[in-house]
């Protein structure tokens, strides 16, 4: 019981992470793949943030009457990681838009069929 409730944040992280990972693998729709990728990344953000929590600690800003602060470093790291995630999502979606223009679909299996039968020539 202790491992379930005491470590609940890690269970949430693992469930989110696996859900995202599964979507990336199982879905053929590219937008859904990007959604899965975002969930996967967010799970890692939650992991970092929950890790930095100190019981009874407040936001890490110096103020009267507080001595316990949460660890600010993971927050900063995750701010950076979120920016990276936004950039990745934007680039992925931009690529999907271009793929839609060129192939007329964003289903990965259909595109693979087109690639294999349509243009064997390569290069």
């Amino acid at each position, binding site marked *: 019981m202790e491992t379930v409730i005491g470590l609940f944040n890690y269970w949430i992280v693992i469930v989110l992470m696996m859900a995202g990972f599964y979507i*990336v693998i199982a879905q053929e729709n590219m937008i859904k793949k990007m959604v899965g990728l975002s969930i996967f990344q967010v799970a*890692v953000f939650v992991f*970092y943030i929950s890790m930095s929590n100190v019981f009874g600690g407040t936001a890490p800003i110096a103020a009267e009457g507080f001595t316990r602060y949460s660890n600010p470093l*993971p927050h900063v790291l995750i701010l950076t990681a979120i920016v990276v995630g936004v950039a990745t999502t934007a*680039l992925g979606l931009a690529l999907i838009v*271009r793929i839609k223009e060129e192939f007329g679909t964003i289903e990965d299996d259909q595109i693979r069929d087109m690639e294999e039968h349509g243009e064997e*020539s390569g*290069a």
Partner: protein
Amino acid sequence: MISANLPILHVIVPLIGAPLGLMFRRSPTGAWLLALIISWFTLADSLALLLIVSGGEAVSYEIGDWAAPWGIEYRVDMLAAYLIVIVSGIGAVTMLYARQSVEAEIPRDRIYLFYTMYLLTLSGLLGIATTGDTFNLFVFLEISSLSTYVMVSLGAERRALTAAFRYLVLGTLGATFYVIGVGLMYQMTGTLNMADLVNRLPEVAETRTILAAVAFLTVGIGLKLGLFPVHVWLPNAYTYAPSVVTAFLAATATKVAVYVLVRIYYTLFKGGVFETLPVDEILLALSIVAIVAMSAVAIFQTNVKRLLAYSSVAQIGYMLIGISLATITGLTAGILHLFNHALMKGALFLALGCVFFRIRSVNVDDMAGLAKVMPWTMAAFVTGGLSLIGIPLTVGFVSKWYLILATLEKEWWPLAAAILFSSLLAVIYMWRVIEVAYFRERPAGAVSIGEAPLAMLVPMWVLVGANVYFGIDTDLTVGTARAAAALLMGG
């Protein structure tokens, strides 16, 4: 001022150059000149760094003057300097080559964006090699990867887009796995600084958290470097990217990822990770499959770029074999092959760039009789190929020699046999191309073409020359690789 800031200039100068590149919207030549100047500057900077650290002392640089475990530290030791020289050297040569090739393959109004992305990639790759902070490494990894996806998607065919997208999905998964690994290590040690981690990891090295961290780091970096079963993004990305991009990536991006793996195993865990987890055996097994199976797959490719891409996966297998042997000779061979493979794949892909420039195709069948009309290009291709196979007097021979020495040291005869067998497969796939180019006639109604322009031939032959020169005079490369390996194993 310059000398004190050497360890960071090669990272920030390309970083500053990237937004400046946006100014050259109407002048592709201007953007090219900017990229060229910056590339050569980073090469000069990295050579100076190599000279400084060759004494054995690492150079450390604290960004913003924040002391090391708290601030971000840049740390250049022998291995890092060696890698920085590889990346900036290949960057300098490919930029020299790039102007005409890029103008022929990328729409004119996007060329300035290409050079901007190239500068970002360069900055990211050099940053990975320089930084001494595990999270900063992730940031640089993503700077280089994101700009790489863009460069791949600039390829002329529409399949470049899907190649870039699949690379993006797998690359992001890899980077996120790496972040998880770093997070787990941070949780156990409370630090992100590599030098600090080295001290704090041994206490907790046996815990399950750290073992999970090692697994995440290995898979994450494995995705980035094209480790055998998760290499699926690599062939398409290399095939459909513009020629210059392929040459630059094949010679640098995967090497940098291999470097990160070496850093994790040998610097952070001091090789001790092999005792708690069988990572070395897993890597070894996968690499053996890679060198045989991927070389075999390469034989059946009709697109020469794709053929070389599969060969790259096999060649990465050689590096990983060297690394997973966990002996000084093995590690020397692995590190040496980083450099040597960069030279030969750089030369081969630049030669293919020349071929594409003239005949607009890199299919084997379209290359029939090409040796008569483009003798210099095909001669370069043959020399690069010989080096890939491992013929004496080329760099390929040197690294294979050390790799086989390392396997014999352990008396693992079957492994040595597998390496030789895979070299034989390399003979077959290179011969397929050479046979078509040299011993078949040009098809009757073919357009008459000439040799590639001099501005492309010269940089290509510089790399080919380096293939031969470092195959004969091995003091510099083997010496540096051995010193770096000794530092890693002993330190």
